[in-house]
């Protein structure tokens, strides 16, 4: 069955990098692997490449399916494809599983070539800056000298922002959605609760649970449930679930009673079965540490002096995890440097997760912006 506007059946590739990488934490990785997917074709000028960065629990599988029986397409399939807002007939789109991820790139469950053992607890903490470095290595391997754009939501948006600072000459446009220039104390607090739920799960074994054939599912479940609460707005939770219950009358026990409980339990179970606990706690750390302005909002304007890209910044009014005010801080830094920026604040009700939604106006903005990028190629 041919799906309309789909990139179709896709296959990931593996990039083996043997150039040593000095991480921000001080540790050096002698080599590493990145799993990635590409869609569309690189043009003759090699200037139509778009890097799409993933957020906390994402991966390199942006669009299409692995087989005709594959139930779910890539996580941003509603946006990427032939004729879609990010049109793969015009652009060469690259998705990569970030270093430390658990979907095929070198990460905590990989073998450390030095010790020939699973990394586990010894796997270093990777930062947004490190990711940009590895993404640049991959792009150079693909023969891409300059990106038409980097696009990302949430933690992916932070990578897009970081690209404009770290490789200002190599990025023409930076699209930053539902992001922030750093995390607030409240955000770090949520991350710490998620980490503690994993770390204190006895099956976590200090991060070396692989050898013991255990998975800290309880911790992962709770971490994910907490995450889901913060990704949705109160309004959308009310509309979706309200006080709806499974049974007509209350059961007066601790089994799932309300629909919201059942939703969170489902999401928690699903996640615990497929996501790596060591990766999760490290991804949250990458979020916590990201702070190009080093704690001083005034520094953001100074840091952004280096940037040369054009920017599109989008926020969602109902997103309380990365509120519009945080996006406006980025916009202010860009305006202070007289950089070209457009900023949209969308009224979507769904909260932080809105950046993944299939909304006509939201997708219209992205489509129009990519048309502008295309006209500049």
């Amino acid at each position, binding site marked *: 069955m041919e799906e309309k506007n789909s990139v179709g059946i896709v296959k990931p590739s593996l990039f083996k990098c043997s150039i040593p990488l000095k991480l921000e934490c001080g540790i050096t990785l002698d080599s590493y692997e990145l799993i990635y997917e590409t869609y569309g074709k690189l043009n003759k000028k090699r200037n139509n490449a778009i890097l799409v960065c993933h957020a906390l629990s994402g991966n390199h599988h942006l669009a299409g399916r692995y087989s005709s029986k594959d139930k779910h397409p890539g996580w941003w399939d509603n946006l990427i494809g032939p004729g879609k807002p990010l049109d793969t007939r015009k652009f060469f789109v690259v998705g990569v599983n970030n270093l430390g991820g658990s979907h095929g790139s070198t990460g905590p469950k990989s073998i450390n070539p030095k010790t020939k053992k699973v990394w586990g607890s010894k796997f270093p903490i990777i930062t947004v800056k490190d990711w940009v470095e590895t993404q640049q290595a991959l792009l150079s391997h693909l023969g891409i000298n300059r990106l038409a754009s980097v696009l990302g939501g949430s933690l992916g948006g932070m990578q897009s922002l970081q690209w404009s600072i770290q490789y200002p000459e190599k990025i023409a446009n930076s699209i930053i959605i539902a992001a922030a220039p750093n995390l607030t104390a409240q955000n770090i607090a949520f991350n710490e609760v998620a980490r503690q739920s994993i770390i204190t799960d006895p099956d976590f074994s200090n991060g070396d649970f692989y050898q013991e054939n255990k998975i800290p599912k309880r911790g992962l479940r709770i971490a994910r449930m907490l995450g889901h609460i913060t990704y949705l707005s109160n309004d959308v939770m009310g509309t979706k679930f309200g006080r709806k219950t499974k049974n007509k009358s209350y059961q007066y026990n601790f089994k799932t009673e309300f629909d919201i409980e059942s939703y969170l339990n489902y999401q928690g179970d699903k996640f615990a079965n497929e996501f790596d606990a060591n990766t999760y706690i490290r991804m949250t750390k990458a979020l916590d540490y990201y702070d190009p302005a080093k704690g001083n909002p005034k520094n953001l304007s100074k840091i952004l002096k280096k940037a040369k890209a*054009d920017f599109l910044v989008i926020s969602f009014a109902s997103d309380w995890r990365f509120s519009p005010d945080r996006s406006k801080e980025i916009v202010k830094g860009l305006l202070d440097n007289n950089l070209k920026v457009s*900023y949209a604040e*969308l009224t979507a009700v769904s909260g932080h997760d809105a950046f993944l939604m299939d909304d006509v106006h939201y997708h219209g903005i992205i489509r129009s912006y990519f048309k502008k990028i295309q006209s500049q190629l």
Partner: protein
Amino acid sequence: MKKNNQTNRYDFNVIESWVHQNSKVLDLGCGDGLLLNHLKDKKNITGFGIEKDKDNWLLSLKNGVDVIQMDLESGLAGFEDNSFDTVILSRTIQSMHNIQSIISEMQRVAKEIIVTFPNFGYWRNRFQIIKGGMPLSKELPYNWYNTPNIHLCTINDFDNFCTTHKISVVEKHIMTDQQAVNFYPNLFGALALYKLVKK
């Protein structure tokens, strides 16, 4: 489209003549962004538009304008003092709640400010009121119950406002149907354009 290209041409030209070559311009309530594009073409300006309405915002983006979505009622936070040469408020002031605050914000971010508004003192408006109804015209196309215009004023009112608030009028142009009006402008002018600086 909010602003009609044809009727706008002439006030675009007046505004263009008041804007300096290669200057930096901020257009508040930029609509579809065509005024900024006109100024880019004719005066090689750089700048931004501000637009609250999501459909107009998208039109501006499509027209190649760098546009910030925000509500002018909350001021111009995010824009540094004197960061623009000219700030324009074209056919928007009459729909704003706090006129004093937006004018003072405009004075903060730019040296020169341009304000245009429909003249409520225009004879056709007066005549419609004498006949007993609220005015409906090309400049005032809304019914009383759905109009966004809450602070309509006449040319005399605006002159008094400028005097009271110590604002110097450096240029003033009154027009009707693309023609300049010099004879009893408060009676015969449909649209008023002002270039202002701080006293």
